[in-house]
């Protein structure tokens, strides 16, 4: 029996943790949006010349002048005049009425090659447009549009379907995992789920402690093995085993949380072992679906980046709380090993194999030693 006050305290703890995480998700979403806006403004209005030149350096394009070669402002090549290239300007347009003997490059401005104007080399406009208005360009004409860095249009419905497929994949994986855990560690799972129901507040704290202690414990294990000299050879195996063990504990804990959530929807009726397992599986599937619903909602919002980020933050918060509580319950119940062993012992005692007849033959009882007479007082 749980006191009502304890239940209320646990509920308050859960609500406060989720509230903190939701606030974090909101902050994250708006920070991300602001960052995107800043990036867009810098990339579309005032991209950094050095970054642009560096980004184009890897391509197989006509060679670009160094950053220091760019002169600020507009430029006009008068009719009949001849300028030796390469000519590079930034923040203004180039009007070509005469001849540029070589390349002409603008950054943040157009190139207008007017009638009888000529560029013998390449005409390259970064963040501008090359207009050939009756003139002549001997080399390549290259235009890197002013939409520098703008995202390309992505098919929203395709993205939504991809995200939903991902959630569906996770659903299949978790259901497969739950069947495996039910077959191999049913008693452990029940014990962890019971611990989660009984000590919810403690499980959150224990789960947090477990997450914090994960890396230090691994380091301590490795150090201990190294110090033992002979154990150095075991370091890789121990590290892998540690990670696998942690993954197993997390999985059992998460599935136990799903069981508890599912039991809330439909509690397991007492019955045979098989019926209990079926009810546990049912509860687990319901719990997994409930835990994946926020992710499915986030997938449906994939067409709206801010809403998607927000929904993902909330989904992450819910999943994290569920996983943390599960890890804590696993630690508190020692992965249900003690109870699983006692249950196995009870089953073994109830097994017919122990109901053998009392042995009719045995060891003949030893003769009771006769009392030796003691000498009387003299």
């Amino acid at each position, binding site marked *: 029996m749980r006191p009502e006050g304890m239940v209320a305290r646990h509920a308050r703890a859960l609500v406060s943790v989720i509230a903190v995480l939701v606030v974090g998700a909101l902050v994250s979403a708006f920070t991300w949006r602001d960052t995107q806006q800043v990036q867009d403004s810098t990339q579309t209005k005032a991209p950094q010349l050095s970054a642009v030149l560096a*980004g184009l350096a890897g391509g197989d394009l*006509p060679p670009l002048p160094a950053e220091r070669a760019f002169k600020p402002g507009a430029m006009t090549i008068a009719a009949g005049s001849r300028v030796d290239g390469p000519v590079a300007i930034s923040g203004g347009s180039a009007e070509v009425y005469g001849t540029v003997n070589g390349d002409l490059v603008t950054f943040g401005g157009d190139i207008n090659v007017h009638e009888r104007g000529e560029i013998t080399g390449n005409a390259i406009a970064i963040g501008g447009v090359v207009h050939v208005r009756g003139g002549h360009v*001997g080399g*390549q004409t*290259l235009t890197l*549009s002013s939409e520098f860095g703008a*995202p390309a249009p992505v098919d929203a419905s395709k993205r939504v379907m991809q995200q939903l497929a991902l959630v569906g994949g996770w659903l299949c994986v978790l259901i497969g995992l739950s069947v495996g855990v039910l077959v191999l560690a049913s008693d452990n799972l029940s014990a962890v789920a019971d611990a989660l129901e009984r000590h919810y507040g403690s499980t959150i704290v224990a789960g947090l402690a477990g997450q914090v202690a994960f890396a230090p414990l691994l380091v301590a294990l490795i150090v201990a093995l190294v110090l033992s000299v002979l154990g150095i050879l075991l370091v890789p195996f121990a590290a892998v085993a540690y990670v696998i063990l942690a993954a197993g504990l997390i999985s059992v804990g998460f599935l136990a949380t799903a069981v508890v959530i599912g039991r809330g929807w439909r509690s397991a009726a007492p019955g045979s072992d098989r019926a209990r397992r079926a009810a546990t599986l049912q509860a687990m599937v319901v719990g997994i679906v409930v835990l994946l619903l926020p992710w499915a909602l986030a997938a449906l919002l994939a067409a709206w980046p801010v809403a998607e980020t927000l929904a993902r933050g909330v989904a992450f918060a819910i999943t*994290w709380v569920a996983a943390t509580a599960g890890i804590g319950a696993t630690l508190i119940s020692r992965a249900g090993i003690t109870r699983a062993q006692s249950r196995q012992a009870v089953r073994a005692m109830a097994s017919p194999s122990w109901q053998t007849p009392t042995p009719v033959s045995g060891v003949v009882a030893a003769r009771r030693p006769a009392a030796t007479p003691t000498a009387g007082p003299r």
Partner: protein
Amino acid sequence: MNAARAVGVILATVAAATPASAQQWRTLESSRQIRSTDAATVRVEYAAGTIDLLPMSDVLLYRMTLTYDAERSQPIAAFDEAAGTVTIGTRSASSHWDHGKSDGSTFRAELSRNVPLRVSMELGAARGTI
């Protein structure tokens, strides 16, 4: 203690919600005027995305419009004057193919009808109209 834990949780959530890597979409337009009616060679290299290769009647030898992710591919717009060869398209920036990650990459090239052209293509995971 509680405040520190809350700040840690918020930071972890912010870090988790931050996109791991942003795509850098760029648009490149390239063209070249016809200088002679001698035969030329056009080499098209395109790693992945949508491709459209069309004829045109213009004073240009070719005109290319390219939308690409600078994180995954590099643009090509080169002309070898001696060999009379134009090479256009994109090349994968990494050594492996990024299957299924080329959504939004487009390549549209128009080639002159007025000059005899020999077109050779090296395509990856591309689909489109030629």
